[in-house]
Every structure is written in C-alpha cells, then in structure tokens.
C-alpha cells in the first residue's frame, strides 16, 4: 500500500536544504550534537569483540523476517490475541489514525499520554487525534520540546537535536504551563527536572497510553519498547488502556532474537552499552499494567518497499539513527530538509520507497555516497547501493521525456564513439577556449559563466580543456 502521512516530502530536497543551510545556529548545534554521539558510539562499539558477527546476524534475522512475513504476522496476531490483546490492521496513515481515534473515543477520555514512536509520527497521529478533540501529550523530553515549540522532529532518536540548551530553556520558559520562567536555567539537569514536574501528574492520572514498539515477537505476541527516561515505563504501566502502533516489519521470529538486537540498538543509537530502561509485555497481565491492550499493525508503504528486490533491505532498519549521526549531508542540512519524519541516509531511501511519487524523488540525491552510513548501520543496510538503485529507477521512469541532460549525454556518446570525431571535437574545444584562457588565469578554470551554463558554475568551477591531450603529447615525445 502506498504510504501517506508524514513520509511525504512537501518540498524538493535542494530547495529545503538551501533554506536550512542559511541557519548558522542550526549548523552549529547539529555539528556539536552529531560529533558528540559519533565519538560515544565508536567508543562503545569498539568494546564489543563480536560486533561484526552481531551485525551479520541482525541483518540475516531481519531478512529472514521479510522472507517469512505473512506467516510471522499471522503467528504474532494469534499469540497476541491469545495473551489478551486485540490486534487491528491498517493499510495507510489515515486508516491507522482512524483506528486509534476510534479506540481512544471508546474509552471516553480526551487526553492520552504518548511514548516517543516513529510509527505514530509517521502516520501523523497527534494531528489526527486533535482533529477529533483528543489531546496527545508527548512525554519523551525531545518530543515534548518539539511539541511545545510547535515544531516538527528533525532526528529519529532526538527529535529536538536542532535546539541547543539555551533554546530549549527559552521554549520551556515561554510555553510550559506552570513553569517558573524566572528561575529556570539552561542547565540540562534543571531542564530535565522541569519536564519531570510538568508531566508527573499526567502520568499518574491519564487513562490511555499510546506507544510504538521497537520489536514485536511473533512466537509470543510480545512487544518491546527501548527508552531512557522512564516516560515509556510510565505510559506502558500506569494507564488502563494501552494502544501500540507497530509497523509490520518490526517483527522478530522469537524471543531469543532479542539477544542480538538489544546489543546492537543501544550502542548504535545513544552510544550506551545499554539504555536505562527496556520494557517487554505480552498482552494483558492480570494485576500488572494496562488491562485493555490494543495493537495496530500498519503497512503504510512497507509492502511497496518489500516488493523492490534491492530496496527492501531498508525494512531491516531498527531506527537507531546511527546513519544520521555520521552523515556529512545530514550534519549540515539537518532533518527538516528531508521533509519526511525519516531524515538522513535511511530517510533518503525509506521515504521515497514508502510514498512513491512527488518531491520524494529528490531524496536519493541527498547524499555524497561516501558510505559512512553503511559502516555505521547495525543491520548492514547498504544505503549507498539503494540510493544508486533509486536514482536509476528515477531516471528509468523519465526516459520517455526530453531533457537537456539526456540530449547532452547522447551527443557526447556520439562524439566519443569514434576516435577521429573525438580528437576533432577536442581540437575545436581547445580553439574555442583559447580566448577564455586570459579570463581563467593560472587556475585554468572559469568561475562564473552566463546562463544557462551558470547552473554548473553556481556550485563549481568549469575547467578549460588542457593545452594538449595525452595522445598529442605521446605522439610528440615518441615521433623522433
């Protein structure tokens, strides 16, 4: 099913990137944050002697899941149902939001607490709930910052990565109800304390919690949420009703498979040996936690992605965001430039595959193909390979239409097919370039030429042809 919701990019990447690059503070914040996390990740990954074996196993387990997905989905549904959960299915973002809104309305409550979840961001759940009069309170610190600032997330793991501490302090001081603005400092522990006080009473009284899941165990119907602050535990434990929105690719065949992913994920995402809290629950446990448990399985473009032989490896993704943190492009433009809730290298291959048409076609070009993302990926997604594949697909799709680039390439191919034609063309180019050598000076390159060639020189130099070719040099050197 073609994906909808917040995976569809509203603007072409180059346009959005230019806008973001104008913000110097943003670039400073991103550079500081991504370099901090990079160093931490390298340190804790270096501690693990069998890291590469874990990566290989992680990739294979996910490929195995994709190969057996229909059976595993049915197995998961049966096991979760037997454990007391109710399983729902949703084809796209709108359907998923409608299911969740219906479930919340049935409880009669007008406020829900949320654990940070990419799936609910992807389907635009908060906006959909608001439209029917239900307020969704984000409880993850970074999500809370973004929600209070009326902004959108810019990173998979740390949606507020684009803010520094003093900007966060200002957001809290002006937008957080009941906060004492005059005494609030930008000391991180003070900001964490403010969030704790702000959310405490909500945790203890709200009747409905909404979460995603990092992993779903097919054999037992178990869900897992990996988190740091304890807001997840609050939302998963204290409400009477729990609704979890889960992408269909989140499955793992068995509980034992967690031994691989719970080693890969924390070290790759926050650069910790283990995150502070991981919760696992299986349906309903009498006397412990929510007594009404719903699970919404979401497609939203995942089956489209699965259908592409090369691109389907993107579905291995465990949303660690290591690829964002090492990406030279992400570090400079930030998450908003990608338009989708999935930014960075993984977003550049996931968003266009999930949502297909439109501005998303520009995302596979948002990369230098340096390969750092593949090295960092804990499930060995060959992101550069998929980027090139998607570029190829984009080009193939528009082969019928005329374009200046294709005309130029066709001419070039005609000229280069024949040695004499090629040599003649070079001579002509050299003669044509002769008067320009004065302008070019010693660099031998033009910095600015008039339209339409200015499209080239606006971002790079145009080198002039050399004074002689290798063949000419060779002939002269060996003629005597």
């Amino acid at each position: 099913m073609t994906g909808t919701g917040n995976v569809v990019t509203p603007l072409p990447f180059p346009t959005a990137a230019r806008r973001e690059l104008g913000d110097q503070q943003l670039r400073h914040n991103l550079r500081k944050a991504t370099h901090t996390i990079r160093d931490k990740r390298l340190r804790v990954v270096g501690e693990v002697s069998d890291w590469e074996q874990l990566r290989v196993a992680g990739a294979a387990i996910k490929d195995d899941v994709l190969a057996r997905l229909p059976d595993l989905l049915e197995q998961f549904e049966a096991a979760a149902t037997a454990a007391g959960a109710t399983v729902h299915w949703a084809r796209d973002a709108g359907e998923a939001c409608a299911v969740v809104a219906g479930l919340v309305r049935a409880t009669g409550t007008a406020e829900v607490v949320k654990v940070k979840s990419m799936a609910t961001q992807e389907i635009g759940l908060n906006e959909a709930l608001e439209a029917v009069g239900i307020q969704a309170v984000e409880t993850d610190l970074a999500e809370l910052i973004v929600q209070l600032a009326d902004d959108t997330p810019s990173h998979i793991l740390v949606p507020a990565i684009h803010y520094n501490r003093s900007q966060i302090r200002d957001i809290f001081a002006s937008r957080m109800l009941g906060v004492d603005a005059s005494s609030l400092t930008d000391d991180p522990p003070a900001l964490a304390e403010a969030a704790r006080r702000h959310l405490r009473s909500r945790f203890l009284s709200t009747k409905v919690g909404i979460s995603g899941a990092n992993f779903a165990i097919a054999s037992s119907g178990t869900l897992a949420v990996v988190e740091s602050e304890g807001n997840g535990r609050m939302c998963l434990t204290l409400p009477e009703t729990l609704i979890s929105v889960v992408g269909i690719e989140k499955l793992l065949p068995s509980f034992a498979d967690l031994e691989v992913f719970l080693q890969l994920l924390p070290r790759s995402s926050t650069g910790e040996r283990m995150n502070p809290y991981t919760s696992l629950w299986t349906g309903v446990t009498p006397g412990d936690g929510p007594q009404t448990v719903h699970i919404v399985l979401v497609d939203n473009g995942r089956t489209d992605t699965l259908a592409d032989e090369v691109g389907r490896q993107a579905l291995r993704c465990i949303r660690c965001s290591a690829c964002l943190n090492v990406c030279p492009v992400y570090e400079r433009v930030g998450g908003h430039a990608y338009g989708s809730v999935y930014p960075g290298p993984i977003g550049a291959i996931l968003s266009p595959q999930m949502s297909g048409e439109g501005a998303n076609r520009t995302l596979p070009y948002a990369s230098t193909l340096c390969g750092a993302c593949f090295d960092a990926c804990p499930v060995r997604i060959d992101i550069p390979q998929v980027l090139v594949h998607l570029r190829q697909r984009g080009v193939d799709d528009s082969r019928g239409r005329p374009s200046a680039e294709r005309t130029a390439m066709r001419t070039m191919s005609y000229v280069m097919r024949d040695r004499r034609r090629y040599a003649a063309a070079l001579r002509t180019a050299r003669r044509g370039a002769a008067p320009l050598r004065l302008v070019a000076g010693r660099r031998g390159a033009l910095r600015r030429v008039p339209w339409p060639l200015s499209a080239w020189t606006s971002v790079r130099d145009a080198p002039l042809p050399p004074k002689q070719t290798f063949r000419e040099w060779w002939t002269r050197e060996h003629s005597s």
Partner: protein
Amino acid sequence: MSTPPDARTEILRRVRAAQPAAPVDVPRDYAADDGPAGLALVDLLVDRLEDYKATVRRCAAADLPAILAASLTDVPSVALPPGVPAAWLSLYGGEIARDSGDGLTVADLDAPGVAVVTGCAVAVAQTGTLILDAGPDQGRRLLTLVPDHHVCVVRVDQIVERLPAALRRLADPTRPLTMISGPSATSDIELNRVEGVHGPRRLDVVIVA
C-alpha cells in the same frame, strides 16, 4: 459486486505478492556463552553500574539486613513486593508497606521519601543491566517505577557476563519484563547523558555473595 477486502486480508495479500522467495540462513557465531562466573564478573558488573551512576555495595549474605538498613537511613518508608523476605529489613527502623492484598496505590508509591526494595531475576555484567521479571521478590512493574529510590538486591549467582545468557535464564519471557541500566536518564539535550528524569532518580544495588 464484491465488497472491498478488509485491511488484514489486503495487507497479507500484498505481503505474499511482494515477498522474497528464498529462505534465509541466520549465522549465529556471535558470543553467546559466558566465561566462568567469578569475582572478575562481579567487578565488571560493579564497574558498569557505577559508570551509569548507580551506587553499589557488596556484602556477605549475613550482612544484608545491616547493609540495607544503612542504605535506607534517610528513608521514612519502604515499599516491598510480596515475596521479599521480611528478614532483609529486620534492622530497618522506618515504616514498611507490603504490596499484597489490595496492593499499594500510585499515590502511596508517589509519596515523598518512599523507597522500594526488590530482588531481580538476572544481572548482565557487560552492560550493567538488572532484569526484573515480576517474580515474587520484584512484584508489579509500578513498584520499581513510581518511587524515586530503588534498591535492588543481586545475588552473585544471578550475574552473567552477556545478554544472550541472561535472556536464556528467564523462566517465562511472557511475564512483564523490565531491564534497568542505571537510574532514569536522557540524552535529549545536545546528546549528552543527564541522569534523573521520570523513573527512580536514585538506584542502589547491593550485591550479595
């Protein structure tokens, strides 16, 4: 005329149509077995727990009541899961609230100065992780969540080196599981770790030989 298929039918049909055919072999040559348990393992666990700002004490079994009493001198009230032996707190002078019968309420647990004392199911030395599986000496999940101070007692024979061995030790993985690595923390401000958000801000671990 046929009715449009429901979401479940359509998604499963689309997955079947898109699905890769070849079965996948999963190589599992990562380290799963543990080295011998011993003092080095305890040292590793202590190192990792302290690195994440937990307070660690070690004692002989006979000294546990004294160590717990010393850890709880500034604590007026202790919540206890149903299966924690009364002997553990025999030297503690404050009020003891046992979570049995109707059980403690969220308000009881949220009161200022309440600590909770529990055991654990297994501990992972390499990552400093305590795994709770809602066993009798650990109780319901909210017991170790709402109070601001958690004291966890770990027996040396519950310590394993790596996560794979720890998960294999769990009697029933469908019980509610909580893995705890240090006190509540966040990395959301400039990606630096800051301790103390919504979960217990103080985590004390007592390792009993």
